[in-house]
């Protein structure tokens, strides 16, 4: 057997192979157990011949492998060129759930305040009148204290009418500085209609520290409103009255429909009321044992449903409690 001739023949056969079957046959012919090369290798006695033949074997293997790869690639190209799907066909359905819109808003508000370095407090829903009214400076005879407006469990126990009792509990439990938000269910004796449900959600914010000012409150709410409703919005703050804040203000955001020029949605004012806020009344500080001369603070309490209405155009709040899949799946 002449290695040179063998190599020449083998490489010619490799080059001539035009299918994977061909190359298999070439491999058997030149490298198989009964091939001339294998037989010659078996006969080798001297080291030099062995090295020459082994080197030849490696070269042939490399050449055959390379050719096989090329042919495989050609075969694959042919195959994929014939495979087609209708790329516009729908995919295999995969179940997808949805967070409730109010949860999405809750998280968004939480995240905004986490980013500002606030912590989130889970307040109680069943509260004593002490925390729900007295500690919040509600005067005796205030309408909210009436069983016509509040759901009482007994003389001293109510379903909280706002998230504010968590302010008092937090301040009782820790010294300033306090930076918290508290979100959750509140309850009022409201007959359900498009804009009222007897259970609703509030976000309560409270910041108490040395040097907290009304300007800080307005800056914080401006930031919150622009984050929720868009940077292009303008904010305005008007005077108001709440038992637990003094001075009290109400936040307004420029109307998303008319951008301030006036339309039915904003009742032609150009502004939409979002919720109440104010500087923590010094009486609350006295109630929890903070020094009202040293510390000032701000608080606000807004309805999450209000944000849902203003931002997503929910026409009827009762829909948020009906759990109709067609509504849940929208958000």
């Amino acid at each position, binding site marked *: 057997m002449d290695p040179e001739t063998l190599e020449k023949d083998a490489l010619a056969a490799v080059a001539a192979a035009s299918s994977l079957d061909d190359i298999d046959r070439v491999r058997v012919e030149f490298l198989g157990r009964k091939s001339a090369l294998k037989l010659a290798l078996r006969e080798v006695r001297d080291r030099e011949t062995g090295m020459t033949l082994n080197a030849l074997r490696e070269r042939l293997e490399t050449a055959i492998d390379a050719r096989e790869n090329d042919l495989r690639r050609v075969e694959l190209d042919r195959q994929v060129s014939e495979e087609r799907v209708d790329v516009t066909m729908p995919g295999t359905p*995969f*179940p*997808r*759930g*949805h967070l*409730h819109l*109010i*949860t999405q808003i809750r*998280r968004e508000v939480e995240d905004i*305040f986490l980013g*500002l*370095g606030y*912590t*989130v407090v889970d307040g*109680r*829903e*069943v509260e*004593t009148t002490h925390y729900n009214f007295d500690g919040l400076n509600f005067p005796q*005879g205030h*309408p909210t204290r*009436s069983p*016509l407006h509040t*759901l009482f*469990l*007994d003389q001293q*126990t109510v*379903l909280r009418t706002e998230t504010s009792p968590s302010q008092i509990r937090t301040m009782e439990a820790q010294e300033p*500085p306090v*930076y918290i938000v508290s979100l959750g*269910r509140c309850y009022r*004796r409201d007959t359900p209609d498009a804009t009222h449900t*007897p*259970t609703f959600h509030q976000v309560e914010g409270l910041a108490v*520290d040395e*040097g*907290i*000012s*009304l*300007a*800080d409150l*307005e*800056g*914080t709410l401006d*930031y919150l409103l622009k984050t929720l409703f868009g940077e292009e919005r303008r904010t*305005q703050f*008007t*005077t108001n*009255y709440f038992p637990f804040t*003094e001075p*009290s203000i109400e936040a307004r955001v420029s109307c998303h429909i008319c951008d301030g020029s006036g339309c039915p949605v904003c009742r*032609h*004012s150009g502004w939409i009321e979002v919720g109440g806020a104010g500087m923590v*009344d*010094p009486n609350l500080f006295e109630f929890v044992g903070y020094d009202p001369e040293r510390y000032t603070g701000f608080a606000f309490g807004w309805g999450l449903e209000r944000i849902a209405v203003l931002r997503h155009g929910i026409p009827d709040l009762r829909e948020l*409690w*009906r*759990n*109709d*899949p*067609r509504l849940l799946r929208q958000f």
Partner: protein
Amino acid sequence: MRVPMSWLREYVTVDAPAEEIARRLAICALDEVERVREVGVLDVDDNLGRFLVGKVLAVERHPSADRLRVCQVDVGEGDARQIVCGAWNFEAGATVAVALPGALLPVLEAPLDERELRGQRSRGMILAEDEVGLGEDHAGIMVLPDSLEPGTPLDQVLPIREEVLDVTPTPNRVDLLSMVGLAREVAALFDGELHVPEADDPELVDAEPVDVTVEDFEGCPRYVGRVFRDVAIGPSPQWLRSRLYLAELRSISNVVDVTNYVMHVWGNPLHAFDLTRLSGGRIVVRRARPGEELRTLDGTLRRLHPDDLMITDGDRSVALAGIMGGEESEVSDETGEVLLEAANFEPVGIFKSSERLGLRTAGSNRWEKGVDPYLAEQAAVHASRMIVDLAGARMTGHVDVHSGLPERPVVRHRPERTDHVVGFPIDPGEQCSILEGFGFEVAPNWDVSVPTWRARDVTREIDVIEEVVRTVLDRVPFTMPLRRHVKGHLTKEQRLRRLVEDVLVGAGLSEAYTWSLAPSDPHRDAIRLPDPMTADQAVLRTTLLPGLVEAVRTGLDAGFDDVSLFEIARIYLPSGEPLPDERWRVGAIVHDGYDVMKGVLETLYAALHLELRVRRSSHPSLHPGKAAETDAGWLGELHPTLLEGVWGAFELDLETLFSQVPERIVYEDVITYPAARQDIAVAVDEDVEVGALVDAAREAAGPILREARVFDVYRGEQVGAGKKSVAIHLAFQSSERTLTDEEAAELRGKIVAALAERFGAEPRA
């Protein structure tokens, strides 16, 4: 409260247009101000110039129409105009309101034209109040005072063109439920000139005593009573009718209109009694007697409560103090003698009575907010003047009963404290002038005396600060708190609650919100509301399941039979303490039965780095053969009676669940030494639970058995009746070395032996 601008501008001189006044009041003074409403006739193309005062020179019957008359009317043009008119409430000599041809009237589509009416030319129209938006009366035309010159522009006489504000003050600002209060506020905010109406108190004629006794000064701190005789009850003059109409107060008769008008001016509700109907002839203010009743002037017989404050005539109640008068003592057309009440009532009692009786009136709405007791006198004087002037009455008696009027609060103010609270400097001089504008007196040492009409509301320095701040609200800069301490993160429980939500959403469940209050609850001691709004919302729930069942049913009714829902919310367990034990739960209903639900739950547990281990159990809402429990709650298939179809469900206590979640996951080497994987299959009796097999395998092999997962259960002839073959995938792994085949075989042998011993399990090939 409705505020006709022409009326307001009588009390305050400012240049600002109504829109600007509304805007500034909304920012600095009031809770709400509605859009300025324009009423009456249009102010375009000199339309107002076509409305004039006219003097009727002659009136004749229309020759060919029974119901019409032909009038000659002087409107200051020299020659009289002929106007055909259908009204009969005037005669020659009357002063009337006339619209000339071309006038645009709110009740007409097209401009008024000159035309023939049954052959008689009509060159204008004599106006009734409804035709120019000044009332609803169409029975006759408006008759004006004879002192008016013909040709006088009508809009100088009557508010035929008006802008009306609708304002809602915050509950602490009852002083702004009055024209005077609003005028004062506008004067201060716009640096305008205030003209508080000043009426001359009529002289007493043939003075007589007025017998007023206040038995309860706490409920009635002040009672001004005045007696009028020879009162001629009749309609009010047109200007008064028009003002009341624009203020949305109904015109009834001159005396009743005066009480409403003066209330609107001063904010102090008044009441007029027919003196002859007070059988005791005097006034006694006291609480209601047990069982006492009163028919109020709306015709309703009211059963009174001993806390209700009553105006009585000494014998019986004649009015619910501050809320509504009695029908019997009401001023009527026959009334000739009047007792005018200008009192002051304490707010909380009025609020409670009006709420208990479900009776809210313009009076109670003011009293319940705390009216300034000093107002009673000004209101009494103003009303007396008008009763004398409009009803030709003589004032014969006056009494003012009170237990001492409150002192004005004096508050020490530090101007720099305002700067501290508001966050930017406000010049002390400006602070002083703001306060003085609102009627406060500021002494050189900054002792601030509060005006009587703010005495309830402003008692502390912070209240004084608010007065300054609200005035400069639109100048407050936006800043952020300067923080020295920051701690902004969720608690572990809050973080895990979000994780649970996300995992369940990822598993295809949608989040439902259902009510905390349920019609009923399976817990025997669940907390019931003593006075629920509706039977549907009567009990504080102790389980989320019924709400979720209801929610799924909503989906089914809407045509969705594959709804999967979850909810994370509180439940309220009776605790024996005053407040219930509020616990967070996650509940879910999953379409298609136990297996799918269990898969969801396993995913949830895996996400929490927990292993779901369940025990057979029972639950009234679950299928008896498909119910289980975990340490944190229950799971199973809903009992078929609850919902049509096959549904898995679970409800877990989150605190219990989260208490087992590891604080942090510590690295374990699961890469370097690969696991040895083996499958085994054993035949066991049908009633052996696969969970028990896995538990036994773990026990036999120890922690080196990293994974044991049942992947097939086979029943059939090859296994034999009453038996099943269970295939379990095993993975043995050490983090210290590669296990040899021999070691793996030995562990497998131990497991097979243990299963054989405990369950009679036979290995299968």
